[in-house]
């Protein structure tokens, strides 16, 4: 479908050390009315970035982006609604990876389907990142590792080979499934089920 290939990413981070960030925070429902995938980035974390009058909150780190490509957030990131708009908004804003110590399932899938890499690290490692807010982070997908540049601390993360290859090559699941339509038909014909 066309997202950027992902191999090694070195970038500064924007840190949001809050737990249970749900997809309603990431992109509030009132911004879900457009029927295309583009343009959601400007409304990412809208209610944290703008006050009740719609004025930009200048102290919000998210309004002072210097091209950071990595978002770092507290445990259980992306819980709640299944809206893929959350992943689109994060990607559209400019992030290519999210680091947390825990991701909600649907969000994780949605991110992977859009070339956004969810990197799950230990709580301990996450805290180390929060303690070095100015440091670049290096995410090495082929090696499945993440490193804090400033301190050299490093941790491995998990991703299955199938998904790893998809990201490295910029493929998505749909291409794969379509190539297997015939097997799906054979499966259907073998079944004895009333639908």
């Amino acid at each position, binding site marked *: 479908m066309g997202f950027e290939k992902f191999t090694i990413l070195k970038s500064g981070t924007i840190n949001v050390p809050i737990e249970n960030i749900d997809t309603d925070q990431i992109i509030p429902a009132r911004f879900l009315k457009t029927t295309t995938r583009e343009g959601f980035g400007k409304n990412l974390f809208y209610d944290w970035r703008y006050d009740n009058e719609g004025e930009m909150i200048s102290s919000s780190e998210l309004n002072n982006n210097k091209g950071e490509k990595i978002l770092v957030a507290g445990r259980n990131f992306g819980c709640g609604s299944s809206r893929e708009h959350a992943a689109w908004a994060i990607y559209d804003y400019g992030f290519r990876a999210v680091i947390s110590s825990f991701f909600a399932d649907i969000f994780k899938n*949605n991110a992977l389907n859009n070339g956004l890499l969810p990197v799950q690290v230990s709580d301990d490692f996450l805290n180390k990142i929060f303690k070095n807010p100015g440091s670049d982070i290096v995410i090495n997908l082929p090696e499945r590792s993440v490193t804090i540049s400033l301190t050299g601390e490093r941790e491995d993360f998990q991703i299955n080979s199938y998904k790893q290859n998809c990201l490295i090559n910029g493929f998505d699941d749909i291409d794969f499934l379509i190539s297997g339509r015939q097997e799906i038909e054979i499966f259907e014909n073998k079944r004895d089920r009333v639908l």
Partner: protein
Amino acid sequence: MKKTIFDKIWDSHIVKEIADGPSVLYIDRHYIHEVTSPQAFTGLENRGLEVFRPNQTFATCDHNVPTINQHLPISDPTSRHPVEKLAENTKKHGITYFPLGDKRNGVVHIIGPELGLTTCGMTIVCGDSHTSTHGAFGNIAFGVGTSEVEMVLATQSLLQTKPKQMLIKVDGDLGKGVCAKDIILYIISKLGTSAGTGHFLEFAGSTIQSLSMEERMTICNMSIEMGAKGGLIAPDKITYKYLKERVYAPIGEAWEKSVQYWETLKSDVGADYDAVYQFKAEDIEPMITYGTNPGMGMAVTDRIPEDSNDNLSFIKALDYMGFTSGEEILGKKIDYVFLGSCTNGRIEDFRAFASIVKGRRKHPDVTVWLVPGSKQVESQLEKEGIGDILRTTGFEIRQPGCSACLAMNEDKIPSGKYCVSTSNRNFEGRQGPGARTLLAGPLVAAAAAINGVITDPREY
């Protein structure tokens, strides 16, 4: 090998497995609505593909729709547009669509079971996290993202990794004034909002088995609020009775054959789970949430807890809600009550609400939105005389839709106001920017609507 019901359904839907990767899982039933489907149709068309199995997808509009004057065109163009897109896409691709005003229209997770489109032993997906609702009939039902909606449209399949499994048993008799919503809020308050992540839940035990289908749906609906992929309950006589003679349910010989198969959908004795939790029904009281995630719940009679480790998220939540640790929640003034959503917008929920307000009056300072989950629920209300009870006690019934559950239409709770809501999410801004949501069941909601303050429904 001993199998759980989940294993049985899963295994019978695997098209093929990929080494160190996911499996191709066949999807029996696919529901779509206007918010998460337009980009999937665009994607499909960009690839020059047709819908692979249009007869297995069903569409409704629910998220954006107004809950008054549904006979008129939708006045907000940003809400109208996605609904029109859905009509256009379903027409072009030969998909059955229940438009606004159609007697089969309603919230997607209410109408699926109501129409008998959801039966048992199926794989069911929808671009909507509360697809877990359909697990109440013994299905692997889960929410997916829009890319996955596109995959199902294109191939009637998904790439999925088998989740872990968790058994949640509830045994014993429920106390007076305690309903299904209280059970699930109680479980989430004990286990937390991420306990289920990576797992599929099975609810079992004598309490669960005694519940009606409506109540079972309320429970499975909120599985996702524990982070679980979904939650299911093995089908039984109560399930079959509910499904029999529903519009799309199998009939005649096909029905007999189906029931025979459904009877096999039980977890084998001694089957393995990755986690098991047990609860006693007697410990459960009418529940309410005080914070900004569904795990922040307690008995209505409890005090708002203290957080032991100065957790930033906890402090932020209480601050948003305007509450302090140690306070009582009983007697707190509220401004709105919302009865509805795919959690509590079914006929039984309205019966429960009416059972409390009957013979009393709505509190003058409370705005109450009663939103049936579907056209069928709406007409059933009138048939049973519940509509009359509600009107004579000062309430008004709106038209079906998601409404204030996510406030994508006009039904928004104003900033800073308190709403006792029978929906499933109390996230910041979920019911409108700055809105303060207290999740509860229909009985607590009814007592608050009468009294204007948080009230223990057992007083009625």
